[in-house]
């Protein structure tokens, strides 16, 4: 498994991989969506992170399970055009027994092309944590859903989901850029249920010093009411 992770990291960076850190684990999430009248919608997400292994690529690191955090997010969205949505949200993070708060603002544009669906998300968020400076982030994500059978994703069909996100973070005058690449294989269980399984790869701290690589096995369940 570590070999695969190392190969992935090599593709993403030209830094001295042997001395760079990695973290590997699980990232399951449950996503509940409810459409409301007047083009409003509510989205609730429960996501948890569990570490399975971590250390330097050059070392042989043993299995090291550790529960990391749980995120609870509630987002309210409003369609401002057929393919455009603005949202406001709040995230509550439980980490090391502490509560972390985050406010979220997003602008989402979705477009359907022949054979794929594309979504662009522009977002800002502010993270508030006790005894720490407020962290400000500016994010851009492009996501695509490609049906593996036919020209649209129908019930009982598999699809490929590819996300690429760029997160600019400013905290106490320190800037960092994180890049995420998430290839997922998805399955449409019914008109209101989807399941996805894949890799959520994140690289950060590469602007100054050795990069930090995070590999999460993502498991997403989407349920619409």
């Amino acid at each position, binding site marked *: 498994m570590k070999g695969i992770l190392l190969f992935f990291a090599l593709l993403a960076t030209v830094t001295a991989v042997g001395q760079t850190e990695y973290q590997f684990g699980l990232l399951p999430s449950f*996503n509940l*969506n409810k459409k409301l009248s007047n*083009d409003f919608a509510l989205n609730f997400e429960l996501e948890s992170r569990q570490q399975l292994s971590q250390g330097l690529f050059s070392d042989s690191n043993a299995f090291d399970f550790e529960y990391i955090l749980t995120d609870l997010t509630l*987002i309210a969205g409003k369609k401002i055009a057929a393919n455009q949505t603005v949202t406001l949200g709040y995230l509550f993070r439980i980490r090391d027994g502490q509560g972390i708060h985050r406010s979220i603002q997003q602008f989402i544009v*979705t477009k359907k092309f022949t054979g794929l669906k594309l*979504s662009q998300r522009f977002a800002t968020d502010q993270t508030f944590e006790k005894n720490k400076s407020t962290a400000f982030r500016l994010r851009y994500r492009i*996501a695509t859903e490609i049906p593996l059978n036919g020209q649209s994703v129908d019930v009982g069909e598999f699809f490929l989901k590819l996300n690429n996100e760029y997160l600019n973070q400013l905290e106490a005058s320190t800037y960092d850029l994180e890049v995420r690449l998430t290839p997922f294989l998805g399955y449409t269980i019914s008109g209101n249920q989807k399941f996805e399984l894949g890799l959520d790869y994140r690289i950060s701290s590469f602007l100054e010093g050795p990069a930090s690589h995070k590999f999460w096995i993502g498991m997403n369940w*989407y349920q619409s009411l």
Partner: protein
Amino acid sequence: MPKLVCTFLLLIVVSPVFAQTKYEKEVRIQEADVPAVALDYVNAFAFSKKIKWFKEYGLESTSIEAKTRSDGKRFSIEFNDNGKLEDVEIDLRWKQLPEEVRSTIDRYLNEIYGKYRLDKAQIQYSGDPDHILRFLRKKEEHQNITIRYELVIHARVRKQYRQFEYLFDDAGSYIRSAEIILRNSDNIEY
């Protein structure tokens, strides 16, 4: 008061239109699963690009469709399950529709929605398969061919953005329409 009556009448006229819905599921199929008559017909066009075949499941019927590109245009050739040609559709831009047709359609849609946006436009040829082939391949004068325009639009109706498919004749007169059942995109939005 007259305005209220007009609105009420418009709602009565328009309501049956909204009652119709359209749902299509397409499944890729192999050439071996295509009726020979349909295969021969599409081969006669001598498209240079790859032809993809689909089985299309609607709410009430099924069909077989060949999709390809030629001269930068997207072609969809639709057959019934026995391989009988239903129509040939070619994507086109709004400005490629004849000006009179455009203004007739625009007037009609403006009356219903006030504000709408075009998502897709196609010209649709139906009728004698050989005449359609000769017309599209050799640019011969067309006979026994019915020309229609299929548009996909979206508009805000009853406080919700909805998508509709409309069919108009070659003069831009309304034939039929249906609301498109939209698929969920939550997993690439949030």
